[in-house]
Every structure is written in C-alpha cells, then in structure tokens.
C-alpha cells in the first residue's frame, strides 16, 4: 500500500514535470515569436518615419527655393534653383507614396507635389534654352507657393505616430477643393491653385485633349457594328455583342465576339465610327513561317485596306509567335511620330490579331509643315563628333506636354551602341536622345 502510494506520487510528479516543461517550451516559443513580430513592426515603422521626416525637409526646401526663385536675377541662379526644386519635389512625391495612407487620402497632395516637380522641370528646360522666366511663370510660382505653404503646414502638424498608424484622412493631408459644389465642410481649409498647363507629362492640358483625327459626325451602335464588320472583313464577327462606352478618353462602342479562349474585342469610336483598337485572344502560337519583312508588308496592305493613311514602320518586337510593329503616319515624306498605329501580326499567316490606333486618331490631322530653317547638313554638324551617322529623316516628334516639334532624326552609332538623336529643325537644339537596347525578339527604345 505504502509503496503503491509512493509510486503514484512519483507518477504525479513526473506528469507535473512534463506539463511544466511543455508550458515552458510553449512560453519560450511564444516569446520568441512575439519578439520577432515586434522587430518587424519596428523596422516597418522606422522606414515610414524616415520617409516622413524626409518629406518634411523636402517640403520645407521646396517652399524656401520657391521664395528665392521669386527674386533671383541671373539665369544661372534660376537654373540651379529650378533643378533643385524639381528634384526636391520629386523626392517628396516618392516619400509621400511610402506613407501607409490610402490612395484617396494622399491623391491630391501627391498630384500637387508631382506637378510642382514637373512644372519646375519644364521651366529648367526653358531657362536652359536661355529664356528668362516670364511674369506669368512667376505668378504661377507665387500661387503654387501659397499651396505649398498649406501642404507644408499640414505635413508639419502631423506626428510620426499618426503617420505610421496610417489613420490620416484626406482632410489631414491636403485636399483639392471641389470644383463647383461648394459648402463641403472637409474642403473649406483647402487652398486652390490654378490649372497647370505647361509642357510636361503631368500638365492638366493633357487630360483635356480631344481626339483631333476623328470626324465630328457620330455613329450609333448598329452603324458601329457595321463599321467593325467592314474593318475586319475577313473575320466572322458572328453574334457580336455591342456595349456603348460613354465615358473615358474616347467614347465609342465595345464589340465582343467569339467564345472565351478565342474572344475578339473591337472598339469603334462614336465619332466617325473609326477603329480605335482591336484585340484577339491568341494562345501562344509558336509557328513563325513568315519573315519579318513579309509580316511588315502584309500589315501595311491590311492597314491600307482598312483606310488608314500611308504609314512607315518605326520599330518592331517579336514574341510568342507574333510580331508587334509600330507604324507612324507619313505626310509628304515626313514621319509623324505622334500619329502611331501599333499592330500585332501572327507570324504564321500574317493576319492582324491586335491593333491600336489611339495615337493615330488622337493626333492625325493634315499638318502645316514649314520648310526647315536648319538644313540636314547643319543639323548633322550639331551632333557629337563621336557618332557615326547611319541614316536620317525629317519628322515631327511629340513632346511630353502634347506639343509637336519638327526635327531631323539621326540614327547613329557610338562604339557598340546605336542611338536615335533628334535635332530641332528650326532652332538646331538637341531635343531628345534615345538609346536602342537590343532585347529578345527586338529592340527596346530607352
């Protein structure tokens, strides 16, 4: 009896021991995991906090530099201040996107900062061409500076903890005032700044552009379907579905035909019933029985049959048994780079499986092409003496802000690299330089 009790006591102690050991292991694992978690959280928080403090500094610098710019009197100071401004604002935008804030919360602040950077970059270019800041430029800068002060005040008023928690709303940052509604309490403290129209990719003017190449008369859904059928005469559209698209850049009709897996989508613009884009689902075809030149020729023939004005190819890329060809419209031997048509041709039979003529219809009009002031020889003399020129042509190139410049295009090599260089045909200025990077199946223009 005695010994049995002893054995039982021993068993109990062992059981308890195991239990305690298990509990200790569990506790240790939990503590380890918790520690690791806290470490990750702190690392993330410090990254956000770093971005926040940098943002504060950059906004301060933007404000200060804008003030200096108002009274700077030499072109050298202007260029230094403007390029610094553009860089600081660009970095501020980058840090802003690192905030753990939702898109609606920071969208307006981000737009403002991006536009400041973009606007200052375009003014830097203007100054680099020897043009002084105009009174209008200074007025715009003055207004931007007022908004900048408002943004700066908001950003300075935050605590790093608030920022890291990601709980800040649009009204905590900076919100653009609503256009006409008025009376919205959340926007009362906002500061307005003028619509920014300048030569840069974030210019407000770009959003307001309409399609220049489309005729004014409108087509209805039935006519759009008929247009689609005539554009794609060799293809059976069958039981096509037509959906009107009333919003977006170019209103029109989205026509869908075919079964999933081989679906064909065609977009016909409401204005003029023109083909804006089309796309056919193609499983990766591997057969490439046609040469690049054969594909090019067949594409040109098909584009002509569709009623597009004469085009010339600019660059190609081949992948998945298809060849993507970029065409630009040509007027009197001048390549019109803004009027782009992209075509995807199946390399097995040369048929067009996808087409995008958005650039073409946005820009294609009869241009008033004046004779170049700078001759081809004079333009070539501007080029770096290091370059071996291979070919040249006269062309119209688009700027970031949607303007067009008449240019001499030179294709030239330096060592192993091939470049495209654009010289302004009226002023002789070096407008743009592209490096052609060979990639699998084609060339990437960078």
């Amino acid at each position, binding site marked *: 009896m005695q010994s049995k009790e002893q054995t039982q006591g021993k068993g109990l102690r062992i*059981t308890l021991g195991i239990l305690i050991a298990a509990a200790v292991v569990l506790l240790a694992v939990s503590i380890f995991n918790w520690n690791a978690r806290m470490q990750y959280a702190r690392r993330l928080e410090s990254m956000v906090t770093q971005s926040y403090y940098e943002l504060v500094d950059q906004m301060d610098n933007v404000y200060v530099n804008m003030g200096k710019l108002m009274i700077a009197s030499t072109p050298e100071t202007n260029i230094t201040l403007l390029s610094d401004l553009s860089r600081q604002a660009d970095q501020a935008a980058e840090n802003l996107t690192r905030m753990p804030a939702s898109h609606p919360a920071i969208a307006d602040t981000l737009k403002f900062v991006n536009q400041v950077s973009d606007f200052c970059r375009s003014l830097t270019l203007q100054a680099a061409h020897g043009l002084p800041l105009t009174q209008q430029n200074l007025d715009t800068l003055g207004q931007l500076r007022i908004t900048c002060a408002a943004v700066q005040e908001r950003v300075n008023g935050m605590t790093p903890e608030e920022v890291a928690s990601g709980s800040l709303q649009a009204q905590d940052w900076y919100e653009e005032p609503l256009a006409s509604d008025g009376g919205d309490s959340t926007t009362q403290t906002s500061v307005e700044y003028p619509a920014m129209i300048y030569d840069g990719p974030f210019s407000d003017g770009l959003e307001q552009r309409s399609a220049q190449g489309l005729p004014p008369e409108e087509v209805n859904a039935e006519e759009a379907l008929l247009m689609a059928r005539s554009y794609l005469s060799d293809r059976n559209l069958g039981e096509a579905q037509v959906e009107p698209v009333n919003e*977006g850049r170019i209103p029109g009709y989205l026509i869908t035909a075919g079964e999933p897996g081989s679906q064909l989508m065609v977009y016909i613009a409401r204005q003029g019933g023109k083909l804006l884009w089309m796309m056919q689902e193609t499983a990766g075809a591997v057969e490439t029985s046609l040469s690049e030149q054969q594909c090019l020729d067949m594409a040109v023939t098909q584009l002509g049959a569709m009623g597009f004005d004469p085009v010339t190819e600019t660059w190609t890329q081949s992948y998945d048994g298809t060849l993507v060809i970029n065409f630009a419209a040509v007027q009197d031997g001048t390549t019109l780079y803004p009027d782009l048509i992209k075509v995807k041709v199946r390399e097995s039979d040369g048929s067009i499986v996808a087409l995008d003529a958005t650039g073409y219809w946005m820009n294609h009009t009869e241009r008033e092409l004046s004779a170049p002031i700078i001759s081809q020889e004079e333009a070539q003399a501007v080029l770096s003496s290091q370059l071996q020129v291979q070919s040249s042509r006269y062309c119209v190139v688009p700027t970031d802000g949607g303007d067009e410049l008449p240019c001499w295009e030179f294709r030239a090599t330096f060592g192993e690299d091939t470049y495209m260089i654009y010289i302004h045909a009226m002023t002789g200025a070096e407008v743009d330089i592209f490096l052609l990077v060979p990639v699998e199946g084609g060339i990437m223009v960078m």
Partner: protein
Amino acid sequence: MKRLHRLWERTMPAVLLWILVITLVAAPIAMAAAGDLYYGSRGEKVRQMQQKLKNWGYYNGAVDGVYGSETLVAVKLFQKRNGLTQDGIVGAKTAAMMGLSLTSSTSSSSGGASGSSQNDVYLLAKAIYAEARGEPYTGQVAVGAVILNRVKSAKFPNTIAGVIYQAGAFTAVTDGQINLTPNDEALRAARDALNGWDPSGGALYYYNPAKTTSSWIYSRTVITVIGRHYFAI
C-alpha cells in the same frame, strides 16, 4: 488515499491527453519554419488556404483566417490524400501541392532576361496574374493598362513598382498573391499593355463589385466592364 487514487485514475487520461495535445501542438510549432501555417496561425494566407480546401471539399468550416481544429483535420486529410506527412503543418511541400505561396521572397524565374524593361514586363505580369487570372485575356491586358495609366497620372506613384506596391492599392500585394509565378498568358498581357494596348479606355481604377467593400470606389465613374471587373476613372 483511496480517494486520491480514484481522482488520479480519473484525471490521468485527461492529463495525458493534455500532454499529448501540447506536445502535438507545441513541438510542430517549434519546428515550423517562419511563414509556415499551423494550428493557431491566423491571417490572410490561412484564409486563402481555407478557401482552397473548401473549394476542393476538404473543409466545411468558416473561411475566417483562423487555423482551428476543423482546419487541422482538413489539412491532414489533404496531406493524407496527397501522400504527404500528416503533420498538419502547411510547409513548402504542402503549400506547393495546394498552389499556395508562403514566403514573400520574390521568385526569379524571369527567364534570365536582363534590363529594367524586362523586369517591368515580369513585375507587371505578376500583378496581372495575381489580380486578374481567370479573367478574359482583354480584361487582363486592361488590368495591366490601369497600372500603367496610374504611372502616367500625377495622383499616383511614378514607377510601375511604386504603383503596384503603393500601400493598400492592390489586394494581391496585401495578401501575398503577388508572389505567385505568372503564367504565359499574364506575361503576354503584360507585354501588350506595355506596348500601349489599353482596353480599359484610360481607367485608373478597377473593381469586382461582388468582392468590393469600399464605398469610395463606387463614387468613381465606370468606363467599361470586362469580365467581372468594372473599369473606372
């Protein structure tokens, strides 16, 4: 003494069971690598796994992101049927069998192509695959186009990576599906989008009305509908 004996006899199975449970739970947890899913795990990945198990008929419980006992049973059943060790831990092997991505390390199977542009194609393809696989091809190109439209917009970050990884912008980034390896269709769609095709009509947003809880997104003007996605500006 007799009473103690009886008490011991009665509690013994319970105690042993406890030890068993603790060892079963604690030991695998201690062994599980970071990122593995096991009894007690919580979060989006568990939710994804539960959804998959439910779709395949292994699991009947709630898809709540909590790895509980029902989930454990389902995972073990899955492991049994697929010839895996029935430890209830969703590690690399089990996850691969489920088609689940555990780690957030970026895969580098981009085909060895170099240059930032090739990286752009791959990154965009990852986003398209994670966000829009199963959608019509045109819808996948449109998702890629929305990302590129955002890059061009002043209201969004100015790089493809910036747009894709912007806080809260895409659910696929939040729940880790962005790290799945894209298929050929997604890569093709990414190339077409980068080459300028935009079936979205210039949209900056898209959403699936069946899955969206954000009321803000409904305030945007819808341009077009492709597959299950509404494309808006």
